């Protein structure tokens, strides 16, 4: 009955309760919507990054990541690709040559990353071809000799257009400088201006002939997994198969650069000259380190000693996005927390007024035998119900708004330059997960409980004899 009384009590002064309720609701709508917009923008960014730019998982020769020289290709790349294709969670796999080059359209050179791709398999791991408008060519579907695909941003800088010639200057596998003329067969534009300006695409087969690479020789293997696939377990399987580790003078130098505790350096130095350790053996070594290491430090140490193939999920390949994603969870707590903190003071004020108005009633309740614990509980429940009523209203309004906006999107085209420079789309589809709503409900309940503490304490401090006779 206390629950029922507490619920009924909040509607005794409807106007006051509705004011508090709507204040909470509006505050929450603002907070939830802000978080949903940022969340949506980040989700889109991650989705685009995976589907267009970096794939779900990448494999490189370990030393290529430290020094991207043309001869540092993955051994047995063709075999590895065939093996990976057998994994049920993998949608597609593609090998890439990846070379630094200078590109020149006749009006001055610019640096670029040349990606040598197999047009068919690349189309399955990356949807970059979708970003080529029909009017600006296509994905290697012309009869041009030495076709190249560049972005519209780079085309503008190079002052070239469709079918125009550009010259690429790069180094072949033997380290000799090579210059070659390519013709623009397609012009793409993604939402990531930095990516657009940096990357150009040519056919693998042409690069292989031009630079002396074998048919199945690649610098990078990219794979796209199903959306619900467990990337950690796939990458662990790949690491167990293809990673190798060596503890030698060179790799110990990598460890030294990590600025880890000297006891860790001493520990691995004592294990010097262990070569060709597999992933499992390396993990065993890590377990025996003289101090407990964070997950990130363990990852860094593994990377330092890698001598075979490095397997990176998109989070390893784009750590800034992974970090933003991690902080996005905290942003919910921070945004909604600040709003609820401000609202909490209003709730405390309202509940103090409630207690003050009902001194006589609290006196009567204690006089007839309601103990202080129950009186306290009743005030706390009233506050929680009031907060929850506002919270649920806010969540319902937010979910309706987010559901609508997630279909239509929010177009921030006026901010395109800033958004695109960070790789974000200007059309944002707000998103917030069910677990986030649950977190918000818990935060609202906590706000109610905390806001009730002082008013409830005031209520139980009343002397029933005085309170019952008060006016």
């Amino acid at each position: 009955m206390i629950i029922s009384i507490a619920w009924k009590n909040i509607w005794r002064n409807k106007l006051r309760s509705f004011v508090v309720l709507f204040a909470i609701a509006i505050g929450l709508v603002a907070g939830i919507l802000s978080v949903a917009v940022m969340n949506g923008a980040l989700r889109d960014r991650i989705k685009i990054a995976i589907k267009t730019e970096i794939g779900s998982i990448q494999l490189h020769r370990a030393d290529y990541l430290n020094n991207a020289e043309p001869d540092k290709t993955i051994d047995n790349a063709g075999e590895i690709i065939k093996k990976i294709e057998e994994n049920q969670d993998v949608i597609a796999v593609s090998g890439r040559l990846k070379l630094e080059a200078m590109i020149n359209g006749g009006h001055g050179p610019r640096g670029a990353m040349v990606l040598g791709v197999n047009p068919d398999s690349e189309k399955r791991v990356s949807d970059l071809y979708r970003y080529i408008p029909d009017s600006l060519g296509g994905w290697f579907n012309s009869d041009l000799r030495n076709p190249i695909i560049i972005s519209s941003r780079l085309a503008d800088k190079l002052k070239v257009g469709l079918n125009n010639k550009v010259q690429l200057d790069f180094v072949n596998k033997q380290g000799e400088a090579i210059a070659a003329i390519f013709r623009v067969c397609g012009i793409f534009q993604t939402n990531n201006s930095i990516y657009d300006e940096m990357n150009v695409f040519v056919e693998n087969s042409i690069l292989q002939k031009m630079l002396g690479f074998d048919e199945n020789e690649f610098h990078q293997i990219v794979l796209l997994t199903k959306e619900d696939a467990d990337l950690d377990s796939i990458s662990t399987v790949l690491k167990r198969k293809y990673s190798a580790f060596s503890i030698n003078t060179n790799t110990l130098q990598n460890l030294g650069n990590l600025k880890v505790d000297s006891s860790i350096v001493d520990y691995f130095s004592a294990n010097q000259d262990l070569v060709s350790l597999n992933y499992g053996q390396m993990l065993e070594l890590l377990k025996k380190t003289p101090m407990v290491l964070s997950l990130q430090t363990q990852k860094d140490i593994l990377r330092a000693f890698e001598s075979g193939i490095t397997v990176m999920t998109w989070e390893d390949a784009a750590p800034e996005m992974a970090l933003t994603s991690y902080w996005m969870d905290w942003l919910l707590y921070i945004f909604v927390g600040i709003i609820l903190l401000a609202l909490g003071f209003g709730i405390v004020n309202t509940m103090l007024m409630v207690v003050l108005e009902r001194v006589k009633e609290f006196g009567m309740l204690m006089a007839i035998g309601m103990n202080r614990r129950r009186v306290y509980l009743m005030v706390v429940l009233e506050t929680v119900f009031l907060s929850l009523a506002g919270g649920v209203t806010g969540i319902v309004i937010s979910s309706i708004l987010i559901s609508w906006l997630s279909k239509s999107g929010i177009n921030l085209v006026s901010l395109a330059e800033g958004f695109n420079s960070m790789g974000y789309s200007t059309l944002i589809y707000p998103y917030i997960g069910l677990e986030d709503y649950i977190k918000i409900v818990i935060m609202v309940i906590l706000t109610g409980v905390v806001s009730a503490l002082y008013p409830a304490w005031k209520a139980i401090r009343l002397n029933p004899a005085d309170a019952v006779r008060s006016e």
Partner: protein
Amino acid sequence: MSKVIEINKLNKIYTETAVPVHAVNDLSLSFEQGEFAAIVGPSGCGKTTLLNLIGGLDKPTDGKIWIDGTDITTFSIGQLTDLRLWNIGFVFQAYNLIPVLTARENVEFIMELQHKSKAERRARAEELLVAVGLADRMDVRPSRMSGGQQQRVAVARALASKPKFILADEPTANLDSSSTETLLNIMEELNGKEGTTFIFSTHDSRVMKKARRIITLEDGKVLTDNII
């Protein structure tokens, strides 16, 4: 008859005021089971203070109060709350019902505090509301009742916990003659039927006429104690 309440040399001095007030002064009294007693006297004579001390709402400065042979002056706040819940019924001048509950729920509420079953609560509440003449107002909230009806609900609530005695602080002060008459008849009948001791503080001559014992206080002392 057994003594329900026994008071010995009770004193209550309020020291919070500029001049200390000796509200109850070396007072000794006792009440037996089934009494229908009125405590009368001018304003400030200590009637309400005495009821508050007997009801465990306030602590005496000195002296003893035994309820059913147990000294309650040494009780903690929690023990006093339990004492009130299980042994004492209260009727207040301003009715003091819970406004968001119906008459029936108001009567049931105290039994819920006693953890009585729903069926027991309901049966007792209905029995009492019928007894106070509110059979047709059980599901009505206090705001839709007259003062007299609200006070009858308050009497039913006071009896719901099956207390040893009921303390009624000027219960008829806000009622018209007809409502007072009805209320007094009901309380008299319930006193006879349930055997519960009723102790009133009052100025009301109509209450005094019904009372079977009249205790007159003056300056916190018993001036007269007459059994009629």
